[in-house]
């Protein structure tokens, strides 16, 4: 898989997690792609923490309205039924448990479901934005990320970077497999048949609990 196929593969698998009527927040980058693969038999409502629900696709250049943007500041559109609200309401929705699923990327995640994705001390200090609130408040936290970073493990025994939140991740979807975070650790529930289970284990620093994982459906 090239990089684009790989990202789409991950996004497609994440999209299968949604239920009809879910309120979903998609992070910037790979998670945004998930919106392209929502099954047509369900309807979900995309929330953007800068203050809207009913996020639609990016507008064509002639339809750009600079007053409608997503949390990355990019022009977006509002779908029928969509609405706007202020930041306090937006984070009331998020912290209050009214977002069903949040999908984020991550630099690291560990065996306890803690994640780190907001700072690399001395290198990158963008700030946490809404990420800490989202992973703390959303009912289900899904990480959509590449399994490794240039060959280095990102799924660790314990995160080494400053945490975004402790024990909040529920599901990790990568190009190599799907990992469920449970009280007793990380369960490899699906693996990509392009890889062997041994290869998945080798690319993962954390201990994976393996009990007849299913093959990820390629289509």
């Amino acid at each position, binding site marked *: 898989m090239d990089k684009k196929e790989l990202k789409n593969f991950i996004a497609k698998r994440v999209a299968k997690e949604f239920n009809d009527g879910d309120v979903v927040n998609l992070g910037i980058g790979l998670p945004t792609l998930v919106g392209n693969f929502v099954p047509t038999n369900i309807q979900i409502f995309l929330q953007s923490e800068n203050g*809207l629900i009913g996020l639609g696709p990016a507008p064509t250049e002639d339809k750009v309205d600079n007053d409608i943007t997503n949390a990355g500041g990019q022009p977006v559109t509002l779908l029928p039924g969509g609405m706007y609200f202020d930041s306090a309401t937006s984070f009331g929705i998020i912290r209050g448990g009214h977002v069903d699923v949040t999908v984020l990327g991550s630099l690291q995640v560990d065996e306890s479901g803690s994640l780190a994705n907001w700072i690399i001390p001395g290198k990158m200090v*963008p*700030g946490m934005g809404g990420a800490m609130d989202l992973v703390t*408040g959303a009912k289900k936290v899904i990480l959509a990320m590449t399994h490794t970073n240039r060959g280095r493990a990102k799924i660790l025994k314990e995160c080494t970077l400053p945490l975004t939140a402790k024990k909040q991740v529920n599901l990790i979807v990568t190009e190599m497999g799907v990992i469920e975070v449970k009280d007793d650790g990380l369960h490899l529930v699906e693996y990509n048949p392009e890889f062997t289970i041994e290869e998945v284990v080798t690319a993962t620093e954390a201990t994976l609990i393996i009990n007849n994982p299913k093959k990820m459906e390629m289509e």
Partner: protein
Amino acid sequence: MNKLIKLEQLKDFVFDGMSIMVGGFMAVGTPELLIDELVKINVRDLTIICNDAGFIDKGVGKLITNGQVKKLVASHIGLNPMAGQLMSDDKMEVLLVPQGTLAEQIRAGGAGLGGILTPTGIGTVVENGKKIISLEGKKYILEPSMKADLALLYGSKVDKFGNTQYTKTTRNFNPVMATATKHVIVLARKLVDEMNPDHVLTPHIFIDNIVEEVQNG
């Protein structure tokens, strides 16, 4: 009671070392004209409270670029490399706050509350040095409420009383900031005589002065 002022009068409401809340999210909903005037006045040593650092040439980023900001309180500075540079050079203090905490601290400041209890940041560096309170088995960080000397807001439609509407996603932090500062100035994209009371998002009692964009832009 006439709340309408000219843009040049902004200088009467600002002073070195003051704290200013600025509405907007990545400069969407930021009153650019008021920021430009602040740059012109060149008031210094400001504490700026804003969702983010804007861009080098947009939003509160213009104040940062001009060296007017002593301390920035924001949730995100990633789109303004100058802010990151000044931060690592110790030339500007940056307090990074989770976005929801920032919004709620400001809301609490305007609502007469001493602070809030939030689960956001538990188990992270955000909790360092703060009081943790357990309620029914769940841990919360005690975050104090936030206030400031001045708020600069961007209303898409403002009536002569100061009743304000914000269009689409320009709303963001504007309505909470309207409640939490000693003085509030709104830049009106459109000034109208009256407004449907059902459409008012910030009641006029919160607004002290109005600057009309078309008159001054």
